[in-house]
């Protein structure tokens, strides 16, 4: 697929390796960058995403922390105000709940509340978990809570190319950036330039072109939507799949332009729908197109905590088959269609090598 960012030689790279490569390149370039968080320097290296950093940059720049998420977030903010550029790592997004006072009351507001006299250039990495019984507190996708707060930027790359480009952009940004990763994206591969490049805030991407409906996926749901789009091709339904990449600032116009063409919008969030990113995206589209007849729907997690049992967990998430069925129903109302069960299960063997 065609690259639209980056330069130099490209090669297939896993998402997890793209993350560590991006951080290593920025640490090499800028001595103010440091990485900290529980277990960033251990043998498992945050599921591989901080692999090699401590050996290369030393324990002053790559260090583990006490289980003190609240204070460690404050430490990151203080260090950032003093001119350093911290990357604070959380192995699950659920732990961000312990950081919310510092993130919401200080990181997000400091530049504004102190009259522009200080900056808080920090990156907060966190990983959304899924599958194998992660359960209620290892599976949450809480990006909407963060999108609500002026002053925070929020990014959720869906492929290795964007993982690298967004991480470099996040580290170079003079604001707090909430960097949302997904565990199931870690082994996925994409063509990634060897050189440094950025995927800038506020620009989304059309991953697959289509004319019948606009489908916006968030984080891992971008892949699920692409799988659904492939399933629908046999039924002759052509979905345009959009990855917003950055949730704040959000590229509203790429979505609006697509919806004006297709007249239909399905937002598939990797999160709950209530007051979520899907609500925000649909509101923004509605505000721009209120005089136009459009059909908008959304999908997301079931409105329950995430259960670990496989039969329940399967019901909890949208999947390529349920997404494809919903798209078909929107495009051809009244015509019953479901993807073939075997094909739907094979959808997971499809390789999507971004950046689409």
């Amino acid at each position, binding site marked *: 697929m065609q690259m639209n960012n980056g330069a130099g030689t490209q090669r297939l790279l896993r998402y997890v390796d793209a993350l560590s490569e991006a951080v290593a390149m920025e640490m090499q370039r800028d001595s103010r960058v440091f990485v900290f968080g529980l277990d960033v320097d251990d043998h498992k290296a945050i599921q591989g995403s901080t692999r090699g950093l401590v050996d290369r940059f030393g324990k002053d720049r790559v260090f583990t922390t006490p289980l003190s998420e609240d204070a460690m977030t*404050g430490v990151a903010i203080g260090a950032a105000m003093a001119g350093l550029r911290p990357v604070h790592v959380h192995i699950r997004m659920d732990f961000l709940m312990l950081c919310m006072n510092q993130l919401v009351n200080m990181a997000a507001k400091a*530049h504004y509340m102190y*009259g522009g006299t200080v900056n808080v250039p920090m990156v907060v990495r966190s990983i959304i978990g899924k599958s194998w019984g992660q359960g209620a507190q290892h599976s949450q996708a809480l990006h909407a809570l963060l999108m609500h707060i002026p002053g925070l930027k929020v990014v959720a790359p869906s492929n290795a190319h964007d993982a690298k480009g967004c991480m470099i952009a996040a580290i170079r940004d003079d604001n707090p950036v909430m960097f949302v990763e997904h565990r199931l994206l870690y082994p996925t591969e994409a063509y990634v330039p060897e050189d440094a490049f950025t995927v800038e805030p506020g620009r989304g991407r059309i991953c697959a072109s289509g004319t019948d409906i606009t489908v916006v996926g968030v984080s891992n749901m971008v892949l699920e939507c692409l799988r659904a789009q492939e399933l629908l091709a046999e039924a002759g339904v052509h979905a345009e799949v959009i990855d917003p990449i950055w949730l704040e600032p959000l590229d509203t116009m790429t979505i609006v332009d697509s919806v004006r063409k297709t007249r239909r919008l399905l937002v598939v969030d990797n999160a709950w729908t209530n007051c979520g990113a899907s609500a925000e995206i649909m509101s923004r589209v509605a505000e721009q197109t209120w005089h136009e007849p459009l059909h908008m729907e959304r999908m997301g997690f079931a409105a329950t905590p995430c259960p670990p049992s496989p039969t329940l967990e399967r019901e909890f998430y949208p999947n390529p088959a349920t997404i494809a069925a919903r798209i078909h129903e929107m495009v051809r109302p009244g015509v019953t269609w479901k993807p073939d069960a075997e094909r739907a299960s094979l959808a997971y063997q499809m390789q999507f090598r971004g950046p689409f």
Partner: protein
Amino acid sequence: MHLDSELDLARIYRNLWLIRRAEEEIARIYPSDKIKSPVHLSIGQEAVAVGICDVLRVDDVVAGTYRSHASYIAKGGDLPGLFAELYGKDTGCARGKGGSMHLIDMTHHILGTSAVVGTTVPIAVGYSLALKREGKGRVVAAFFGDGATEEGVFYESLNFASLHDLPVLFVCENNFLAIHTPLEKRWATRQLCERVRTYGIPAHQITDSDVLKIRSLAAEAVASIRTDSRPVFLECHTYRWREHVGPGEDYDAGYRSRKELERWQAIDQVPMIGEKLNRADREKIEAEVEEKIASAIDFAERSPFPDPAELYKNVHA
């Protein structure tokens, strides 16, 4: 850092008097509604900020709370900027976007203060991490109240500062009150310094608010922090004379007695240090302070409010 020279005493008195008078002026102006921000006055607590800041270098850093007019002034923060901020003016230290509870003056190394109790403690620690790497021997003095020591983040911060040998002086301004709730309804035991020492941090208590004693302990602490890069903790007992928020007194509210106030007024450091100076010197200082405050108030009154378009600026850097 010995103290006996007239110069030292004059400087200390000037700062004590400046804070006392500036806050009395804030209280005087407040009913006019020219001040557009809730004020938490430090009147009665000046000795802590002055005793600590007197031993800091110009490039040392202070972190404070929503009751931080005192530490802001004691560290040399811009006075016209303070008054203009209280007035909500464009020339305020936070350009009218902070208010009394979010003072800042990075030129004088005063970190932004916070309304949420305990919040600036880890930020001070993080700042000290950067100073340690910088290697110029700078220290951070983190001011907070007794209420902050009840927050989990306080102990997280102590632990991290000790674990990483960080150059931070923790200063607890213990005025025995969290809004209106006294210590005995909040602390299971009174042994704050003992709690802190379990983290391997030396801790000292000053119970009479003696500014020279605070200064002397602070001088020793800051010297050791500069050489060893290890945190030190000071618990300074003090007393808030006015209501929690606002310009007045509230001894008729029933949560504390005027007798208690009178015990603290009997050891008020402002006149006690003033009396150590000769009369001419003292009067000269007081006249200069009045002029400085009047000029700061005049600056605030004459300054423009921010343009409405300013609302949307500075959300992002």
